[in-house]
Structure formats: C-alpha cells, structure tokens
C-alpha cells in the first residue's frame, strides 16, 4: 500500500527490540497493525478487510 500511495508510509516494527513502542501501542500479540495511532488491527486479515481497516483511518467520515 505504501508503494502505491505517496501518502502512505509503512513501518515493520520489531516489537521485542522496541519495547517502548510495543508498550505505547499495547502490543500483546502479533501481528498488530496501528494506523495513525487511531486504528488498530489485530492479527492477519484477508486483503479486502485489511485495506478497508487501514483506509478507515483516512476517512473518519465517509461521504456517500
């Protein structure tokens, strides 16, 4: 997704190496995805669902 959109940046974070980040985002299981500190996705999702969730951080109010 980051590769496609100039507005998206993706970080793969090694949780055990950065316990401060893991704590901040309350990572108790992996994979855990956090988008803009507002949307949290637990576990792996099918592509459609994952994209939907990630993009929900961009559009708090759906138009149409």
């Amino acid at each position, binding site marked *: 997704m980051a590769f496609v959109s100039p*507005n*998206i940046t*993706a*970080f793969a974070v*090694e949780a055990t*190496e950065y316990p401060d980040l893991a704590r901040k985002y309350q990572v108790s299981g*992996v*994979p855990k995805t956090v988008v803009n500190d507002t949307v949290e996705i637990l576990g792996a999702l099918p592509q459609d669902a994952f994209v939907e969730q*990630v993009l929900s951080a961009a559009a708090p109010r759906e138009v149409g």
Partner: protein
Amino acid sequence: MARSRQLKIETMSLIAPSDQEKLREAFAEMTSNVRLLFFTQTLGCETCPETRQILDELPPLSDKITIEEVNFVLDKDKATQYGIDRVPAIAVVAANGQGTGASDGIKDSRIRFLGTPAGYEFMSLVHAVLLAGGRPLSLTEKNRERVMAVATPLTVQVFTTPT
C-alpha cells in the same frame, strides 16, 4: 599475464545454500535496482551489527541490490527525510541512478523496517525488495484504486516478533 584472483569463500552465511538459490532466482526477476538505506550508529546500538550482517547477505545474491549505510548521528537530515527516529532501521528505495537525489532515479517505497530483520521479518524485507524491484503488486485492482485515492497521510505500523 593473468593473475589468479583469490576467491572469497562463503563460510559464514546466515542463509542456507538452498534458500540462497531460491532468493537468487526471485531477485533475478527484478527490473529496478534497489537500495537499502541502513540507518545505524557506532555506539549504543546493540543490534546494529547483527542487522548489517543480515543485510550483507543480500547484495551477493543480486547485482541489483545495494546497501547504503547512513550514520544516524551524523546524517540527521537523511534520517528526518525518511522518517527514521531510531536505529537500526532500513528504508527500501528503488534506485536507478548513481546519485542519491530524486533526480537520480530514487523512488522511495515508503517501506521501512525498525529493528533487526531476522526470522519472518527477513522474508518481509525480501518481499519489500522485490516490490521495489518491480514485482507486480499483490493488491487487487480494486484495492489498488482505493489505496491510490488516499488523500491524507497515513502511517501504518505493523508490529511483529522474530519467531
């Protein structure tokens, strides 16, 4: 007169020979050069040497992959440019020129790795390299369009563990 060159014998590779062969085949499909910007510092970074060791496994498998070491302490501008605030970190960029500017063919994939890319993370790194290297996206056409339409900055952090 030809002088025989001493070949460096690969004795300490972290990757099994059969896996090296698979990676070599996968990387052979790359159409773009890929540069891994490795943000590191000399002191106070326990896992930086290990990360460098892992990264060093890649260039021997493809002449399209290069590593550029960036000193996190001395080259703050570059760290800021790539949104890196800790080390070890890796930014994956497509690089089809010789230089380091956008005009030199640098295309930032905006894919970053924080921490040592060992275990599953190594495979993620390989996928990122292949993507930046020109492999077709795994996104469906519909999802690609939706993602391209994103108008606000999104930072996606995926937390993983090595095993």
